[in-house]
């Protein structure tokens, strides 16, 4: 069974998760034994809070043989606006994550169904979308269209990257245009939203899935609560932007535990996508 597979974390990833023997759940405050939490896929056993995990973890969790044949790994950000501190921030993020930019994409299979898979990583500058992420997501979509493979994008993002100004905003239009072409070919796109997915990413490809799946308790929305408070004095009630409330308002299809994410993807793809499926042995 897939969940008995060892979910191996590479050494550099472990650093990003809370250190120490014990971890406090940021939602219910429960003190949890780190090893137990890891075994439970970083889900709080008491309140079901899904701790943030990185893109390596999701690759291990979701893809056959825990493998992604990554493409365009070397796309690197530049500093087109000569924005204060931007180069330094890129460097810090690169050292912290071991990534050139905050998204990966490539070919993979899920339950023996070949797919194009892309994942963002919140650890890289808050998953903010600049030119490189926009381009990688656009290429993922194009690859799915050209190879006629279902597309899965896992999002985690605070929105467009301020430091690339208008160029970041245009990545929303670029990725959405690619999705319009994909839709014309009638190729399914499943969008997975993880905690948090907001602003420019939520207002483009993340919201455009044929099917939209989220993890429980994920923060999802257009405007951050702090910005709403500052600009119009609006106070967001607790839970307004959580997965469960978006489900209640008809904005997403499914709230799925991390433990069932892979099996859910397989079930959906085997129904939606017949002709691309590898022959069963």
């Amino acid at each position, binding site marked *: 069974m897939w969940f008995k597979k060892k979910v191996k974390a590479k050494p550099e990833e472990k650093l990003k998760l809370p250190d120490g023997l014990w971890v406090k759940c940021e939602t219910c405050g429960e003190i949890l034994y780190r090893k137990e939490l890891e075994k439970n896929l970083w889900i709080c056993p008491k309140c079901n809070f899904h701790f943030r995990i990185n893109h390596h973890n999701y690759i291990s969790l979701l893809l056959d043989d825990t493998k992604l044949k990554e493409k365009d790994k070397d796309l690197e950000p530049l500093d087109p606006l000569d924005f204060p501190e931007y180069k330094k921030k890129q460097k810090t993020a690169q050292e912290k994550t071991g990534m050139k930019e905050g998204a990966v994409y490539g070919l993979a299979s899920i339950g023996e169904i070949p797919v194009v898979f892309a994942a963002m990583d919140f650890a890289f500058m808050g998953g903010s979308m600049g030119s490189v992420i926009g381009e990688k997501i656009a290429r993922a979509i194009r690859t799915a269209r050209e190879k006629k493979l279902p597309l899965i994008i896992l999002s985690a993002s605070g929105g467009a990257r301020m430091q690339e*100004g208008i*160029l970041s905003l245009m990545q929303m239009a*670029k990725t959405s245009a*690619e999705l*319009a072409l994909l839709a014309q070919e009638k190729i399914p796109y499943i969008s997975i939203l993880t905690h948090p997915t907001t*602003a420019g990413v939520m207002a*483009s490809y993340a919201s455009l899935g044929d099917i939209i799946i989220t993890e429980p308790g994920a923060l999802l929305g257009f405007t951050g609560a702090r910005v*709403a408070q500052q600009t119009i004095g*609006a106070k967001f009630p607790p839970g307004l932007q959580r997965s469960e409330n978006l489900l209640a308002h008809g904005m997403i299809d499914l709230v799925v535990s991390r433990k069932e994410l892979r099996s859910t993807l397989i079930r959906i793809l085997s129904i939606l996508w017949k002709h691309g499926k590898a022959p069963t042995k």
Partner: protein
Amino acid sequence: MNGIWLDFERPIGELEKKIEELKGLKGVDEEITRLESQAKRLKKKIYSNLSRWQRVQLARHPRRPYPLDIIPLITEDFIELHGDRRFGDDWAVVSGIAKFDKFNVAIVAQQKGRDTKEKIKRNFGMPHPEGYRKALRIMKMAAKFAMPIINMVDTPGAYPGVEAEERGQAEAIATNLFECAVLPVPIVVLIVGEGGSGGALAIAVGDRILMLENSIYSVISPEGCASILWRNSSKNKEAAEALKITASDLIKLDIIDEIVPEPTGGAHLDPEQTAKNIKDALIKHLDELTKIPIDKLIPLRISKFQNMGVYKE
């Protein structure tokens, strides 16, 4: 003149006031002529070296012409059409059909409101999801009847409120981006005043993107950027510089196609001339676009956006 002077315009205001005072008196003609040429030189000096923040101030000028001031000056028989057929009618978005030169067009615009009452009614130009859905409904109707679309952008941003979140602000914007990418009619976009982030982009995917000379278009407001970057929203001048949000910045970045000139000192000083410049530019682009077959137009539109972005391969 306009009676409202921005901080950087104050020296001009003082000179003009002095000239007005002298005009009633006798034997001061020479002095008036001298002051007038001084005022002219001063205007040239100030307005030809506007900083980015000064452009922001002009883009937000309380007397700046709004789409509903411009539309009657450039079209005949504009019929405003209302509602998204799903939830309501958003007054921050104005949409309709009109005769424009030799074209029958659909127009979608954002409208801020002039006095306090109208500002509230129009929610300061910040649309809710139903505004974006109304816009899309009208644009799809335009496509059905093969009418070109003119979109006019003037918004601080999409409304960041509770109801907007619940009714799917993000989905409404995303869907417009998705649909407009392949809409089978020419779309010309004009940034009139403020192009505020995703809330602007939702009606700004098109074949040509034009900006009025003193308009701005940005991923985040200078105030928002300053409060994130320096934890200090009063550093808006520095943020405006860093974000590069003026028409001349955006043409250098290959984001927009043309800058539509404004009268010296800003569009509000001569709305008729501004409207004429807008009309000329729109006709020029519509003439070009309507000659391109639709099966070529859409790939051109898509590749325009595909090419946006700067990175190292």
